[in-house]
């Protein structure tokens, strides 16, 4: 589970997906989430975020586990725990950046004059 590796496909494929989605008329009606045709782009978008959030949650869980081990006295590796926390923090910032970028491109699309 490499967050960087998992983001690489994200940084390329969303553009292609959004390109394809912008050509389809369903995007103009985002309220029609119940219809089968609109479900495809919604799925891709949520899967993307789900994947990212899952990665960050795993990092956070690893940091919590390491910290618990230190607090319980099972491990004297205080630095491992702090490094794990920092990693979780960086992974979170990365997720926020990707989310900002996704929202930005969505708003850009919504502002587009047809």
């Amino acid at each position, binding site marked *: 589970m*490499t*967050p*960087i*590796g998992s983001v690489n496909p994200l940084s390329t494929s969303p553009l292609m997906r959004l390109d394809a989605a912008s050509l389809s008329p369903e995007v103009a009606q985002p309220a029609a989430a119940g219809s089968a045709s609109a479900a495809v782009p919604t799925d891709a978008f949520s899967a993307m975020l789900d994947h990212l959030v899952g990665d960050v949650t795993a*990092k956070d869980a690893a940091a919590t586990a390491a910290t618990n081990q230190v607090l319980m006295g099972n491990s*004297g*590796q205080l*630095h*491992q725990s702090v*490094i*794990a926390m*920092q*990693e979780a923090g*960086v*992974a979170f*910032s*990365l997720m926020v*950046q990707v989310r*900002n*970028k996704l929202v930005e491109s969505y708003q850009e699309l919504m502002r587009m004059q047809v």
Partner: protein
Amino acid sequence: MNLISGVDVTAGALNAQKLRLDIVAQNIANAETTRTAEGGPYQRQVVSFATELVKQQANNGGIPLQTVKVASITSDPTPGQKVYNPQHPDAGADGMVTMPNVNLAFEMVDLITASRAYEANLSVVKNAKQMAEKALEIGH
């Protein structure tokens, strides 16, 4: 552990320096110990380091990185100082007691070296994290 690359190497070094500090603590604690399980006075323990290959990762271009690990903890064979103290329970027939070969001055130097090396590795971690944060700032 691969979001902040290079930290695996530093974590190994931090572990090694921490173990070195523990050994220094053991040496200082036993500076007056004249009785051990092996018999005779306490022998000063010395740590030696060895490189260790980190598991190769794809995100650093497949370049093998080497971290450090404690290779061995060996006893310093130098004989301990003999002190005349006939009241001591471990004194020989001539009233001489063999003290441990721990030299507090050496141990303090080791202690400071280990602590400075630990700090140096921590600043590597700090800088690696700052680099990652700077990279994330590109989007701003």
